[in-house]
Structure formats: structure tokens, C-alpha cells
């Protein structure tokens, strides 16, 4: 669909520019930095983590390396009651968190945007139908839904993603639809119709570029939700025991009475990681808001 008659700068640069990354806001910059750190950690997990997170470890003297404090026997953050390295769990937990977060966010943004585009552009019965679907989605309480889903399907990290894809596109869809309704009244949309452009072409070339920043805004909100939800689910015991996530670590710590044992090194690090990543998501969101809606007047 690229315009052959024009010479535009390369696609990647244009795409990046259209994202309008919020580089001015210090909070957003901080958020982006955190993401970068975590993404790198996730990619290089194999190199950063000294052990496999599920591996039960033994001390040189053949005792179970359980409940070791940070520093003992060379375990940076100590070990769990079952003898697993906490640091390695944190590092590998990053993968799980980011994978879920980004996939879920992508699904939410994608489905929400498509629904919003179609609904807003075509109006009529299509709009009515899609918005009633959104209403139904609004009526579904999210966490219980995930639990129910986990009960039906086998416990897996993907439950969260599926649940979000089924339900959480609703906010994005509503907002994108509003934006599309406004954009539709622009003269250049009429002009495109009069010039003979098909609806698909108008949606792709005239409308979508203007709603992309909003999509990314809602996507970045969704990352935080996904990670929090996954942590909640794991904590409640509906998560996948095979994969180590931060939520799982919290649940594990709770079940092993880590607080009583004053094993802060066990549950504080995953808690902090969750806080950091989710906050980072919200900071980036804030940065986007300042760009998209400057009149909010911070």
C-alpha cells in the first residue's frame, strides 16, 4: 500500500516516528530505561542466571541448599525452602513476565484497535453489534474470569493472555472508536472518498496512522495489567507450576511461611520487580498522555 509516486524516508524511521515515543518526560524516560533493562535481562537470562530456576540445589557438603541467606554458599539472593536459587528465579521470571505482558498488550491493542476502527468508521449495525459485544466484555469481572478459564483449561501462563484477548480489548476499542468518529469527519476523509479511494484504503492510509499512538498508549497500560494479573493468578495458586514467574515466587514464599522465617530476600525482590515493571508501564503511559493530550496541563 506504499505510495509509489513519493519518496518517503525509510519505513522503520517512519514507524518509530509514528509511535511518538515520549522522550521528553523524565518519568517516561525512566520507565523506558527500566523496560530496556528488563528486556535485556530476559534476552540474556541464560547468561545472567547462575542456575536453572527449578533446579533443586545442594551445598558442597551434600545438604539441601534450602533457606540460605543472601551471600551464603555464593547464592546472591539466597535460596528457597526447596533449595532453588532465588536470583535465577528472578532472572528467568523476567522472561515470563515480559512474554505475557507484551503478548497480552499486543493482543489487547490489536483487537481493540481493529474493533474500534471498524466500529467507528462504518457505523450502523456493525457499530451497534461490536459495541454490544464490548458492553458484554465490560460486564465480565476480569480476575474471576481468568480463574474460571484456568479451571477449564490446564494451568498455563497463556491463560492470562487468552483471557485478556477475550475481554480487555474493550477499553481500547471504545477510545479508538471515539477517535475514529472524530477523524471520519475530517475533510480529507471526504476528499479521499470523492477521489475514489476504497474504505479499506482510507482506513489504512488516513485513519490508522492517527490512532496508532493511542493504540500504543493502551498497549502500554495493558502490559502492567497482564503482569499484575499473572502474578495474582499465580499467587492464588492457579498459575502454571512448571514455569517460574514472580507471582509464583510470591506464592511459593507465602506457602513456605517466608514471612515468619523473615526470609525477606525471597519475596521482596519479586515484589519489587513487579512494582518496577508495572510502574514503568504507567510512566510511559503518562508520557504518551502528555504527548497526545497536552492540554491536560500537568
Amino acid at each position, binding site marked *: 500500500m506504499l505510495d*509509489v509516486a513519493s519518496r518517503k524516508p525509510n519505513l522503520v524511521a517512519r514507524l518509530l516516528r509514528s509511535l511518538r515515543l515520549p522522550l521528553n518526560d523524565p518519568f517516561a524516560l525512566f520507565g523506558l530505561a527500566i523496560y530496556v533493562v528488563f528486556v535485556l535481562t530476559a534476552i540474556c537470562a541464560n547468561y545472567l542466571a547462575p542456575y536453572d530456576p527449578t533446579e533443586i540445589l545442594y551445598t558442597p557438603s551434600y545438604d539441601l541448599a534450602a533457606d540460605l541467606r543472601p551471600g551464603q554458599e555464593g547464592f546472591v539472593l539466597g535460596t528457597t525452602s526447596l533449595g532453588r536459587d532465588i536470583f535465577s528465579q528472578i532472572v528467568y521470571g523476567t522472561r515470563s513476565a515480559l512474554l505475557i505482558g507484551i503478548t497480552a498488550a499486543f493482543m489487547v491493542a490489536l483487537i481493540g484497535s481493529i474493533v474500534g476502527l471498524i466500529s467507528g468508521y462504518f457505523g450502523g449495525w456493525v457499530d451497534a453489534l461490536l459495541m454490544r459485544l464490548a458492553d458484554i466484555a465490560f460486564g465480565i469481572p476480569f480476575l474471576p474470569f481468568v480463574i474460571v478459564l484456568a479451571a477449564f483449561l490446564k494451568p498455563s501462563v497463556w491463560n492470562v493472555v487468552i483471557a485478556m484477548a477475550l475481554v480487555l480489548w474493550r477499553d481500547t476499542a471504545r477510545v479508538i472508536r471515539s477517535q475514529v468518529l472524530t477523524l471520519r469527519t475530517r475533510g480529507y476523509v471526504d476528499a479521499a472518498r470523492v*477521489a*475514489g479511494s476504497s474504505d479499506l484504503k482510507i482506513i489504512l492510509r488516513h485513519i490508522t496512522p492517527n490512532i496508532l499512538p493511542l493504540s500504543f498508549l493502551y498497549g502500554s497500560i495493558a502490559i502492567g495489567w497482564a503482569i499484575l494479573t499473572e502474578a495474582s493468578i499465580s499467587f492464588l495458586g492457579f498459575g502454571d507450576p512448571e514455569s517460574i514467574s514472580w507471582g509464583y515466587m510470591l506464592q511459593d514464599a507465602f506457602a513456605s511461611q517466608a514471612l515468619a522465617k523473615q526470609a525477606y530476600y525471597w519475596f521482596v525482590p519479586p515484589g519489587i520487580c513487579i512494582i518496577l515493571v508495572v510502574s514503568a508501564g504507567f510512566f510511559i503511559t503518562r508520557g504518551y498522555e502528555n504527548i497526545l493530550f497536552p492540554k491536560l496541563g500537568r
Partner: protein
Amino acid sequence: MDSNETLVSVRNAQLHYGVGGALQALRGRSSVVKAVDGVSFELKRGESVGLLGESGCGKTSMGRLLLKLEEATGGEIFFAGQPIVGLRGAALRQYRAKAQLIFQNPFDAVNPRFTIRATLSEPLENAKIPVREREGRIIDALELVRLPQPQQFLNRYPHQLSGGQLQRVVMARALILQPEFVVADEPVSMLDVSVRAGVLNVFRDVRDRLGLTAIYISHDLALVRYVCERTIVMYLGRIMEDGPTEDIVHEPLHPYTRALVAAVPVPHPDQSHDPLPIGRGAPDPRNPPSGCVFRDRCPYAFDRCASEVPQLRQAGTRRVACHLF
């Protein structure tokens, strides 16, 4: 070119919107807005007709009906003998190549993220003009609207052009596929005064050169007069008067036209300050008066005006919808 050929024929066109709902109906307000309510006229090839009226009269809606930006809810519209109501697909695309629109606000009418070249390429892409021909046609179109040294504009963005320049680009886009019929919707009202003249002159020039049939929508009678030899005066979705512009300016027949002509200020000190022969109040498209829609403001209204809708009748060189004639 057969100058007697009728190019556009409108018969009893209607555009009704349903608004409000049960609540409005309870308050006794009609839930239908009759933007265009039974408009009939014909355009010969090469004619320039002004569609004159104030806001809410339906002139813009009529323009949109002609270009199929809205679908008529009643009546028929013909272009070169073919009905255009209900046109779809390939036939619709063919029609679009022949009928074009020039917009009111140039900055709203072009996508601010597109270069001028991209804006002008869009119609060419849709008409499947081969790529190697496109640049040439773009330059030709820009020269047609008298933009000096067109090459310099191709890579620029809309915000880098002045209002007058951008409006010429909008015109160029409308003309690039060499249409037969052009609707210009208040094309200069958003431009500075000293710039309007230039754009209007280009419009007149191009129209003459390409032999275009044109409809010029405006609320400004002086501008309509500059461009069109014939004027249709609209009020609340209906035609009040339709005839040669000069006759309408010098000898308006319909009471509404008389008020309209009297109301136009002129740029020199000696002008009449007499009160206008028209009642106060504004037209409400949701609750038009029965019979003649103008009767509640008309100084000459009598009982027949309330009970019977005046038909458009021939009175000399023009048609008037008034019981006085």
C-alpha cells in the same frame, strides 16, 4: 460539445435525517431533519450555477448528495442520463472520476501527514494511472492552478503552504482526473480577503478552459455573482428562486431573495441602512412552518401561504416558489 445537453438532472431530491428519539417526540419536536426537501433543477453542460443560501438551508447537503458523500433518501439524481442514487462499485468509481469537490477549508481537506505529491497522487492511484505518468500529471495540474514553479511544492507538507496556495492544491487535486462536473463548497470563505481574488480568478479561468460544469455553493451573493451566470436560492431545504444571477441581484422576486440582496453590505460608504424586509428569528430545520417554509418571516405572507406549499413556477426568466407569482 453540445451546449444544450443536460448534464445533471435533479428531481425532487430529499435528504432526511432522523434525529433525537422518543424523548424528543414527547416534547413535540419532530424527529426528522429535512436537510433537503424536494429540490429539482437541471444543469446544462458548461453552466455555472450558484447555490446560495444561509446556514441550514441545505446547500451543502445538496452538494454532498451530488457527489454521493450522502445518499439521497428520496427523489432522483441523474448524471449524463444515468441515475446516480444507488450507484456502487466500478460504476461509482467511474462517476467519481467525472464529478469532483473543492472543499471549504484547505487545511482540513488535505491529510496533514501527506506531502503535496502524495495528496495529488491519491486520485491517480485510484484511477489506476500508470506510475510513470503520474509525476507529469501532477505537475500539469499544479500549473493549471497557476502555482509558480510547481516542483518546489511536491515534497512540502500542507502546513508549509499558505491558505491560498493550499486551496489551489485542493483545486488541482479535484481537476487532476479532468472531471466534467465540479462542486465548489465555499472555496474561498476561509481565505484572507486579498487572497480570495486570486483563487477565484483561477477557478473561473480553469472552468472556462476545461469547459467544466460547476456548482458554486456560497452564502455570499457577491462572490456567487462573480463566478456564476445563474443562481439558485435555497431556504430550509427548498428552492425559493432560480434564475440568471444578474436578474436576481437587480430585481429579486422572492421575498427571501429580496431580503438577502438588501442585506449584503458593499465596500463603500453610500449604502442603504433601511431595515430589512424580513422577520427576525432563525430557520429551524426540525420544525419548518407548514405550507411555505418562509412564511413566518415573510412580510407579505397571507393565508394561502400557510395551507399550500408554493410550487416552483416560471416567472419571466426564472422560477419562483411563491404564491405572489
